[in-house]
């Protein structure tokens, strides 16, 4: 989110700039098992976002002092490719933003993986943003969940993530980059659809209690579509 003197009009004739309704998702396409060398992988196209996720492990934790003898540890590396974005949307490579997103993603999956099944090991999640258009942390989490399932890692649930935001008085779903930069609020959420548990909730900007509730409802409603796309991608591996 950024304020600018040149703030564009984000809603024209009751529609968003890309023609979507307020509660409409961008087109979503997921393909699982795309990398031969990874235990599990997924490629995701969400609007103009292009994300590749790969999972390795459980394997011996290195360096060894990081290992926990009672459970597996999860490591996550979120990274934006050098050619992934426009100049004003995050720097590539390791930086403060990538470190933060890696951390919150790791914490999302620590809540759903059966970690005590694999004591002393590590599970590595790699998320590579090939092309970014806002909402890449949500896209990364959604892709990584598919990659983890594809790797045969036991999980309580298939997590999905999407963001809600606010443009003026309107609460909107699945914020894209221009909306992310100039909207009044952005709220990425990750949800465990089975239990409805919220595994990630971050917010930039401000929302009233009523707007927050509406945003959450939109995210939960959109979860049905996202979860279906995730599950279909996994089942399609065996239908080829």
């Amino acid at each position, binding site marked *: 989110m950024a304020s600018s003197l040149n703030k564009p009009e984000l809603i024209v004739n009751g529609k968003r700039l890309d023609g979507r309704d307020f509660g409409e998702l961008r087109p979503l396409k997921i393909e699982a098992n795309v990398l031969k060398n990874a235990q*599990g992988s997924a490629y995701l196209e969400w609007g103009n976002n292009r994300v590749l996720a790969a999972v390795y492990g459980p*394997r011996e934790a290195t360096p060894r002092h990081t290992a926990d003898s009672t459970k597996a540890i999860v490591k996550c590396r979120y990274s934006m490719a050098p050619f992934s974005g426009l100049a004003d949307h995050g720097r590539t490579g390791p930086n403060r933003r990538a470190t933060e997103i890696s951390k919150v993603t790791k914490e999302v999956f620590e809540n*759903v993986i059966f970690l005590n099944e*694999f004591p002393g090991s590590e599970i590595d999640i790699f998320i590579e943003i090939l092309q970014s258009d806002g909402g890449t942390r949500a896209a990364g989490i959604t892709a990584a969940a598919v990659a983890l399932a*594809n790797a*045969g890692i036991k999980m309580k649930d298939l997590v999905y993530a999407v963001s809600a935001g606010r443009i003026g008085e309107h609460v909107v779903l699945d914020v894209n980059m221009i909306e992310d930069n100039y909207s009044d609020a952005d709220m990425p959420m990750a949800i465990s659809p*089975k239990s409805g548990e919220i595994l990630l909730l971050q917010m930039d900007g401000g929302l009233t209690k009523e707007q927050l509730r509406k945003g959450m409802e939109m995210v939960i409603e959109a979860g049905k579509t996202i979860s279906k796309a995730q599950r279909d991608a996994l089942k399609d591996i*065996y239908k080829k």
Partner: protein
Amino acid sequence: MRQFVTPGEELPKETRRNEFVTFYSGKPYSNILGFYNEAKNEVVPLEGMWKPQVGDSVIGVIEKPSKPGIYNVVLSDFVQGLIIAGKYEDSYDFKANDLVEAVVASVERKRLAILERPRKLAIGHTIYVKPVRIPRIIGKGETMIGQISRLTGTRIIIGRNGIIWLSGGNMELALKAIKKVENEAHTSGLTERIKQMLEAESAARS
């Protein structure tokens, strides 16, 4: 058509409890990517790693011995094997990088398998398949692997950890058949299809 299941997907009420089923609010849910076997009312995993159990036959590679009489064996990314001379047999003569076949005698901390009855494997061909597909490759009453071995004349030893050793006969055809079983493990009527493939290819070569 098989009913595929993914983590967090609700299962029928009559689902039998096994390690791939989690109960939430009294309802069964899958916790793995697999399929639902309606005949047995259970979830069968399609992906996943091998977890050692007592009695499993395994194939691994001997690492450089750290102490005399103690051999570490690489069994998988997650599981380490250990052969201790004197525990089950008096002594062994293994060298680093030897390929051995053994049986899991006990499991410690889920990832250390103590091995017994180790046997060095002679020169042959080894392949790696997904460990969850091993039961399908063996088949009910060893029917699948029995027919592959018989129709190709290849000697085949299967490790539950996903490593398969082959030697002699028409190895190329045996490999092709094993890979086909691995890739089509979720389909039905596979034993018959493999038999037809092996017979057709054997006839074409002779």
